[in-house]
């Protein structure tokens, strides 16, 4: 039965990655013109669900797939957009793992801190690529916007997790 479980897990991770990519692309297509480039970060819902359902390893896979395949599909791979989103995703992945391990907080806090890390990661890559230290001005604005967007994505992830039964999924 071991290999069947591994196959099941593999399929779920693939499905979660596909969902993360789809959500990411839909969000970037329909949520436009927000001031200061603020985003909801709905794709983060999938990361939060994955880490709760499986483990850190699966969440890292889903997040990396989201950036790699998402950018490949948009045709921006290895361009500046790719590095900026990688910066955000890598920092938010690290922060999510650390916060979950060390602080043991609720999903809302995880989600907010993840959003904060995502914005800061992106800003630092922008500051580095375009050599724009003045870009740092945007950080406090993004920090404040992370609170409502983090609560929203955390709430959606929580509602989804309440409806998902891990035992049933892996049976």
């Amino acid at each position, binding site marked *: 039965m071991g290999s069947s479980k591994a196959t099941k897990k593999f399929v779920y991770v693939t499905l979660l990655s596909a969902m993360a990519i789809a959500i990411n692309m839909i969000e*970037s*297509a329909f949520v*436009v*013109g*927000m*001031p*200061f*480039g603020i985003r909801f970060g709905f794709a983060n819902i999938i990361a939060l669900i994955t880490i709760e359902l499986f483990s850190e390893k699966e969440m890292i896979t889903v997040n990396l797939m989201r950036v790699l395949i998402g950018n490949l599909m948009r045709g921006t791979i290895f361009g*500046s*957009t790719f590095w*900026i989103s990688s910066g955000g995703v890598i920092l938010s992945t690290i922060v999510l793992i650390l916060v979950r391990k060390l602080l043991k*907080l*609720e999903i*809302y*806090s995880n989600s*907010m*801190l993840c959003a*904060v890390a995502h914005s800061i990661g992106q800003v630092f890559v*922008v500051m580095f*690529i*375009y*050599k*724009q230290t*003045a*870009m*740092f*001005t*945007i*950080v*406090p*604005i993004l*920090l*404040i916007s*992370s*609170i409502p967007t983090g*609560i929203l994505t955390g709430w959606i992830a929580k509602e989804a997790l309440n409806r998902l039964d891990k035992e049933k999924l892996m049976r």
Partner: protein
Amino acid sequence: MKKKDIYVIGSILSVAIILFAGIWLYQNKFQKKTEMAQVLYSGTVVMLEFDINEDAIYHLRGDVGHFDVEVKDGQFRMINVDCPNHNCEGMGWQPDDNFYMPIICIPNNVVVQLKEE
């Protein structure tokens, strides 16, 4: 939501406020005011230099298409940008009365900024 979540919100807000205050202080007290601005391509190549006190609309091209830089009353903004996400238009007029932020259009690979001394 539990008590811990409120603490997290509180700490994010306090960090944001401290940063706001620090940036405001730095930009208003220590930074030299400059009247010249420039449009940079790829972070280094100067596409255009302009005086922010001369009202004008400059038509330029970036990696994905055209964009306009409107200059009015000592401020500039990006308009009619031919890109999918329009984040740079969302940055509004710069420099703002309290805060200055360079306008970066990532798809077009351009930055509109005040010229550094």
